């Protein structure tokens, strides 16, 4: 029986796609990030001779294999849903990006084959550790390549090429392609870092054996260093990304930064602030347990926590009273009622740059203390709650930004699947679309 143009009652087609893609992205991001962090951890174990690094890497490899099942099942189901619900759009995309999608499929195979080999050969290659680490890194490399390939498609949908679709260079390296790659690469590592920290905190709080407490205390620290270090890069990389969007898709920029969906970035600032304050607070607590006491360093970190809180407060102030128009959170004269200290220039810039600089200094101080080591297993429960808060927040941050990128298609007078080329109801537009056939739009 032909299915025709299927309409999903109540929730609509988009929710079906969201339901499949968002969990897939959360899992895929985890897989890519962990296949970079875990081999580095294994290598650290090799050079420092500390077994905890290897224990962590091995458990991470096992979990990666298992979660790959759900992640890839969601990906396949998503493609199936896309073909069924958006056949015109999909055939259009498949035509332009056939080689990208083919390569993407092979990356899936390569990645899972290498992760399996890496995990399976752990004992067998115990005396060829360097070669074994390379297995892990290769799996990570496949994952990153996979991400860069799908970014071709994702970035093209927001900012289609500046030339005809047959011009491969322009099409693949479309305006937001590189910023998206950089933003997602750092995001993968930060996301996974905070998740590692959150998991470690959970296990630490439940552990009763001393060696487990020591291990999970260390694991929380290890994850937090990754999470916070790469979080610090994100405002800069995100700024570069938004700059490209502003230049090549002004309507999208307006919609997200000053328009009806600007609340998403206000929400993002709250999320970033929670993660930053939780991270610096955690570092401050941890410094109490440095093997070599460092009171000056701790006092400086305490100051850094104060500054982080100050910059966070600055970032969280909305620019006007047009808060969330979708649910009626508009007060006084809306956009006309500006809030002091809420403007992008100079206050948000001061907040972002300040937070990044203070963060870099804090991380530097903390890593200096790490050099002398910590007494593991003595962290209090509040420090673990900070790790859990950061982990939960990073998941919501991913969801917020994923939603922001996809809802940006609604910017302007038309809702787009590919901006300027294909509308939500799969109408192909010739005028102004570089990929569309010019003679017969």
């Amino acid at each position: 029986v032909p299915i025709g143009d299927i309409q999903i009652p109540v929730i609509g087609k988009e929710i079906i796609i969201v339901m499949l893609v968002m969990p897939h992205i959360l899992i895929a991001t985890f897989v890519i990030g962990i296949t970079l962090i875990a081999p580095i951890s294994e290598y650290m174990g090799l050079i420092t001779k500390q077994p905890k690094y290897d224990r962590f890497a091995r458990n991470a490899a096992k979990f990666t294999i298992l979660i790959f099942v759900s992640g890839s099942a969601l990906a396949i189901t998503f493609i199936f849903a896309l073909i069924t619900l958006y056949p015109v759009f999909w055939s259009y995309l498949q035509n332009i990006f056939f080689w990208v999608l083919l390569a993407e499929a092979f990356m899936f195979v390569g990645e899972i084959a290498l992760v399996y080999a890496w995990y399976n050969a752990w004992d067998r290659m115990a005396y060829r550790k360097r070669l074994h680490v390379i297995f892990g890194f290769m799996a990570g490399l496949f994952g990153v390549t996979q991400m860069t390939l799908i970014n071709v498609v994702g970035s093209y949908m927001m900012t289609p090429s500046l030339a005809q679709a047959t011009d491969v260079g322009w099409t693949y390296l479309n305006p937001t392609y590189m910023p998206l790659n950089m933003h997602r690469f750092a995001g993968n590592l930060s996301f996974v870092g905070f998740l590692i920290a959150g998991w470690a905190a959970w296990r630490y709080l439940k552990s009763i054996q001393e060696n487990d407490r020591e291990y999970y205390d260390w694991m929380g620290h290890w994850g937090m260093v990754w999470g916070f270090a790469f979080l610090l890069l994100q405002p800069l990389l995100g700024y570069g990304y938004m700059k490209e969007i502003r230049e090549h898709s002004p309507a999208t920029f307006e919609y997200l930064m000053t328009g009806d969906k600007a609340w998403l970035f206000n929400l993002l600032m709250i999320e970033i602030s929670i993660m930053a304050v939780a991270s610096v607070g955690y570092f401050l607590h941890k410094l109490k347990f440095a093997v070599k006491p460092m009171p000056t360093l701790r006092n400086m970190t305490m100051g850094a926590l104060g500054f982080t809180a100050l910059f966070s407060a600055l970032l969280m102030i909305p620019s006007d009273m047009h808060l969330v128009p979708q649910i009626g959170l508009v007060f006084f004269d809306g956009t006309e009622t500006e809030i002091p200290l809420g403007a992008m220039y100079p206050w948000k810039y001061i907040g972002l740059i300040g937070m990044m600089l203070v963060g870099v200094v804090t991380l530097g101080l903390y890593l200096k203390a790490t050099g002398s080591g910590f007494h593991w297993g003595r962290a209090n429960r509040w420090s673990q709650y900070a790790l859990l808060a950061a982990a939960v927040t990073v998941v919501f941050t991913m969801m917020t930004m994923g939603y922001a990128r996809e809802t940006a298609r609604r910017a302007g007078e038309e809702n787009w699947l590919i901006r300027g080329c294909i509308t939500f109801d799969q109408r192909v537009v010739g005028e102004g679309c570089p990929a569309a056939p010019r003679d017969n739009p």
Partner: protein
Amino acid sequence: MPGGAEGQPVMEALALLQSELPGLVRFFIGLGLVVFVTGGSVLFTYWLSKGG
């Protein structure tokens, strides 16, 4: 879209909320489904890691 008068009356805000309800309901259904599928996947993986 409200936002004109200073001190917007509560009833006006409620009326707007009601008119936007389908969008809000869709938003929360979507969010719920995402949490359900992601949580289910993670719990399934955890169960597998414990030996199934």
